[in-house]
């Protein structure tokens, strides 16, 4: 397996696994979003969706473990790249001209990624733990919808969600088109289309996720 180590630790290999885990997370976000949007169907629809997921718990658990591994590889490689890339230029320029030659999204992947990671921890603590009856704030009688609604009545908590989702959008906007470049999938005809799809996807995902806390904040928790 020495070839795998060589590949995994090469500059292109690190990016390849960044892209591979990235696209897996992009696909996961779509399923997550579809489930979330059932909140707009009211308590019955959402609680039924969650109950259905409960009924296939073993499968959900397996997917969760795979997802956690994907996240870990993505985070591990991201941090490794960031540290190594900092080392590649020990002395910074006195004048930073990067705004003239690159987008802010592409330069701030580690910053947006870190905030999204902090968000993920907070998010798992609130919802994943409660939905799985871990810790003190377990949910009784399958009242998932009511729990979500109550959680978002806190303007600070909801505000954090909205900010995190905007930054997730920034992260995806670069990540989406970037993974095609990393895999070597560029084409005169299709790359401009991929760039548009990437931006549309980022805006739609960020907006749709961010609307949920805003919606419950405005409704006042019921």
């Amino acid at each position, binding site marked *: 397996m020495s*070839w795998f180590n*060589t*590949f995994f630790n*090469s*500059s*292109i*290999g*690190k*990016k*390849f696994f960044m892209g591979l885990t990235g696209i897996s997370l992009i696909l996961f976000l779509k399923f997550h979003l579809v489930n979330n949007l059932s909140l707009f169907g009211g308590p019955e629809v959402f609680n039924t969706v969650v109950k259905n997921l409960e009924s296939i718990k073993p499968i959900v658990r397996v997917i969760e473990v795979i997802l956690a591994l994907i996240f870990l590889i993505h985070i591990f490689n991201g941090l490794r*790249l960031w540290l*190594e*890339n900092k*080392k*590649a*230029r*020990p*002395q*910074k*320029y*006195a*004048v*930073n*001209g*990067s705004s*003239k*030659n*690159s*987008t802010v999204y*592409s*330069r701030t*992947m580690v910053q947006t990624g870190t905030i999204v990671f902090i968000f993920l921890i907070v998010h798992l603590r609130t919802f994943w733990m409660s939905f799985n009856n871990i810790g003190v704030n377990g949910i009784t009688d399958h009242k998932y919808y009511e729990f979500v609604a109550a959680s978002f009545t806190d303007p600070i908590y909801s505000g954090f969600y909205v900010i995190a989702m905007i930054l997730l959008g920034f992260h995806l906007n*670069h990540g989406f*088109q*970037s993974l095609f*470049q*990393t*895999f*070597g*999938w*560029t084409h005169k005809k299709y790359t401009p289309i991929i760039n548009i799809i990437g931006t549309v996807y980022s805006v739609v995902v960020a907006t749709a996720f961010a609307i949920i806390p805003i919606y419950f904040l405005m409704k006042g928790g019921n």
Partner: protein
Amino acid sequence: MSGKNINLTLKIWRQASPKAVGAFAEYKISISPDASFLEMLDEINDNLEKKNELPIAFESDCREGICGTCGLVINGQPHGPIPKIATCQLHMRNFKDGDTIWIEPFRAKAFPIIKDLVVDRSGFDSILQTGGYVSVNTGGVPDANAIPISKDIASLAFDAAACIGCGACVAACKNASAMLFVSAKVSQYALLPQGQPERYQRVQNMVAKMDELGFGSCTNTYACEAECPKGISVTNIARMNRDYIKASITANPVD
């Protein structure tokens, strides 16, 4: 000659030796807008020598944008603010009277500073030594056009071969990555029939050398393409990624 002289304040990086601590020194100059950037530095050096001071060390050779020797970071941009030209092709008419210009060397761990604005780019040579060639037996001169190559492919290979190896891609990249340079050298052979026999070993060897020398990894900011004096496209990086991934995953080497 057009226009009257412009007055500029220059902040130039001075560093006596590779290990010495460098700092910016300030110079004031009144220069014709028709002068090139390097002519302005020549004039400053003339003045310094007249005062018996050490001139500023900087590199140049052809002064017409084809040798890739000159390379300065001017106000944060390699080869200055005008796209697709080398430092030697930059003229003072692009600056305004009263401007302050910051002049720095290319900064990267793999490009150590030798003196002032001169950096050691021999890392690029080491990368080329691992694959920037085709191994062919010498013999009689082959017939021209014995191997048919379509115009489209020839043009793509030529565009990649236009890389002058100046190192601006490394200087521009926030990660000091050499991907654009290496990918141009990989592509110019990968596109042509003559490069096929060694195509996959070449990309693996060149990438391994690039990583070993301490260049950073590519994060697809495309700053390299924006600053490249020859307009080398990042699609070359995609081609190199494709070849490298394919070589790593599918290669079945003979023991």
